[in-house]
């Protein structure tokens, strides 16, 4: 499985909560804009009926100022722009109320629903943050600024203050929405699973499983071979045999062979280690009677992760072990080829071959030692064989991207 930053199907709750808060705040700004814009034809129609059309300038300037402040707050949402909206909006509301009431006694109280509309828009300040509760404070600030501006206008004009219910009802609804949002988010944080934690648990299981399967491959390559030697070998072991058995026991004690640390990378130094590892395998098999010829692209430098290098070396050794033990051939050929993204080893022998379809599911050889190893690091394996026609095992593993040229280095 791939590891790293990838698309997640569900946002973390914290992120989703910030989306909700922003969406609700934006709704508030749109409602405020609609309210202010609808005021324009409303004022025109009412002033026309009352023959006040010549007095439109002051209310319109007030509405314009508020719309400007709202646009700045909505498009560049910062605490300072929200504060600016409250201040500038309060000023605009003052101009609007003053312009509507001054010299127009016929408008009160019938047009109160129109006169206090901008004040309701000033309540819908929203928030610049990701949490809902600060929006309540901003709303209270807007409500206070709007109420104060309206009261000052009435006082200046010597008219009894008439605030109406609209701003209060708007504030109550506005606060209820954000408080509700806060309560729901709190309860959701406790109830809704964090997908990334679930994914982390899944990765842990996968890491454990991969380690298990590598342990299987390791045991297959070491003690199962040793047991086969004990069952079928000579009564007295020679030095090469005892050395190999002791080395296998030592390998089992060295648990780094099955380590799963996907972020550990080896670079050029690892390539040399890989090359040495391959030559060591070839040399070992040659000592045991198999002539191995390595051809193809053997001189280039390949960069791969530690996991990939370990899987490739293990698969190569297993392929050659199979040639030695099962093919009846005394020679094998390894062909190395590579692209920018992957390296391929092909192990050919001219031995007795086999029918791949006849290999039972309980046979571990190719399956765990080659297929599982290679596939566990994102590689692919192909086997061509037929009775009497030899066998070709091809496995491809991914390479790391080429390292960028260092500044000032050789081209």
């Amino acid at each position: 499985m791939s590891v790293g930053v990838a698309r997640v199907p569900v946002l973390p709750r914290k992120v989703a909560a910030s989306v909700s808060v922003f969406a609700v705040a934006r709704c508030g700004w749109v409602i405020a804009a609609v309210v202010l814009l609808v005021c324009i034809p409303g004022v025109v129609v009412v002033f026309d009926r009352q023959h006040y059309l010549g007095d439109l300038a002051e209310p319109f300037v007030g509405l314009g100022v508020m719309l400007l402040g709202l646009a700045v707050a909505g498009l560049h949402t910062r605490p300072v722009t929200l504060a600016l909206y409250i201040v500038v909006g309060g000023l605009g509301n003052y101009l609007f109320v003053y312009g509507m009431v001054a010299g127009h006694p016929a408008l009160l109280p019938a047009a109160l629903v129109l006169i206090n509309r901008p004040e309701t828009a000033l309540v819908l300040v929203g928030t610049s943050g990701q949490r809902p509760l600060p929006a309540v404070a901003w709303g209270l600030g807007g409500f206070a600024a709007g109420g104060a501006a309206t009261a000052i206008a009435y006082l200046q004009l010597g008219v009894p203050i008439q605030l109406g219910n609209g701003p209060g009802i708007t504030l109550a609804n506005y606060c209820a929405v954000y408080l509700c949002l806060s309560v729901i988010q709190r309860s959701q944080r406790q109830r809704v699973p964090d997908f990334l934690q679930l994914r982390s648990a899944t990765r842990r299981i996968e890491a454990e499983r991969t380690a298990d399967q590598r342990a299987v491959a390791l045991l297959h390559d070491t003690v199962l071979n040793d047991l086969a030697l004990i069952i079928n070998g000579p009564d007295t072991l020679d030095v090469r045999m005892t050395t190999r058995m002791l080395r296998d026991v030592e390998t089992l004690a060295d648990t780094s062979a099955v380590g799963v640390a996907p972020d550990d990378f080896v670079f050029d130094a690892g390539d040399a280690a890989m090359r040495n590892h391959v030559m060591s395998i070839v040399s070992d098999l040659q000592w045991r009677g198999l002539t191995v010829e390595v051809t193809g692209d053997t001189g280039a430098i390949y960069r791969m992760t530690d996991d990939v290098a370990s899987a490739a070396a293990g698969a190569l050794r297993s392929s050659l072990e199979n040639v030695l033990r099962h093919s009846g051939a005394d020679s094998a050929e390894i062909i190395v080829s590579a692209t920018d993204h992957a390296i391929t080893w092909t192990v050919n022998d001219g031995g007795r071959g086999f029918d791949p379809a006849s290999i039972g599911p309980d046979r571990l050889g190719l399956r765990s030692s080659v297929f599982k190893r290679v596939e566990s690091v994102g590689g692919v394996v192909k086997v061509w064989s037929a009775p009497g026609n030899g066998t070709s095992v091809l496995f491809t593993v991914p390479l790391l991207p080429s390292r960028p040229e260092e500044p000032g280095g050789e081209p």
Partner: protein
Amino acid sequence: MTSPWTLSPQDVDPVSWFTGPRIPILLSLAGVIEGLFITLLYWDRWSNIPLQFVGLALFLTAGWLTTSGGRPHRPRFGVARSSGILLVGCVGVVSSALGTIGGTLPVEQWWPNIALGVIIVVISPYCTPRNLLISSIPVVLFSGVLGMLVFARAQDFWPPATVFLLGAGPTTIGAAAGIVFSYTVVSRTQAMLDTAAGVEEFYPTVEPLDDAEQRDRIARLSARIAPFVERIARAGVITDADRALAAQIARRLRSELVLESDRSWLDVVAHKSGMIVSDPARLADRMNESQRAALQGLLVAAMDSSVVDSQTVLIELRAQSDGSTAVALSIDVDLPEGRRLVLLAPYYLTLKTTVEDLSWDDGRSLLMRFRIPPS
């Protein structure tokens, strides 16, 4: 990326707070309480009070229909359902209008259009912005025209155009708010999901297995063998008894290794929890990481609950002719439907985002079925 106009907030973030089970009915109730307050405040200015209560009941019904239709295991909210809910709201407005004509209520205090605006907002998490726009336009026009019909003749201060605006204002605001909410949630969520930039900081890192764990794994499988091999290597001589024991160990080890090698990730979960997995073709490993995480979350949530016996959890995977994998999950949950939903809905919804055709069948056992498309 799919256009934000064609997806609903529920589509892009089904576990979002707005899909909480009681939110739509609570918001509708708030609108109804406001209507009830105005009805009582202007008690003697309506022409027919009972019709106001009929209207209030219809708005509450619209909220209940939204709550019911928006429940996590219900099918996707379509145009028909959203239009039907708005229609119930419109009937509520008509009922109130019939009880208002001939009365002396000020137009600005007429509550049904406010309640209708609330209903538009309430359905917005389940509707695509495009559907909301299409279905809102007739509702806005309807509320404005009806307002004119009810109030235009009785008003001497407000000209007809203003009466239209006063009538259509709340629904216009509701529609604008709903569309903006729906569009904003969809577009921002999509952007964050697609780029992963917004969630990168929340990615936990997986600790590699430590040496002790790795040693345990090797030791578990090779405990008896390594000393045996070492003894023979050091002795340099193989006896018949050694050969017999080696053959016996090799047989047992081979069978253990085959078993270990065949375990899918689901077998690992089952091994830890006791649930039953029927996956003869080892299809569980076809699931991608997100599908595994979501399914594992659901299984763990179910089995961690005191009302679920983990031994009764059965999951079956079968290959389909089209290359997909059919999965059936059966859980004996000793809870009524509503509480089952409360327990499992967040996990069910998370799973829904990663698989296809997920269904929820209630019965004595809760049965979920879904499909994993070919990779």
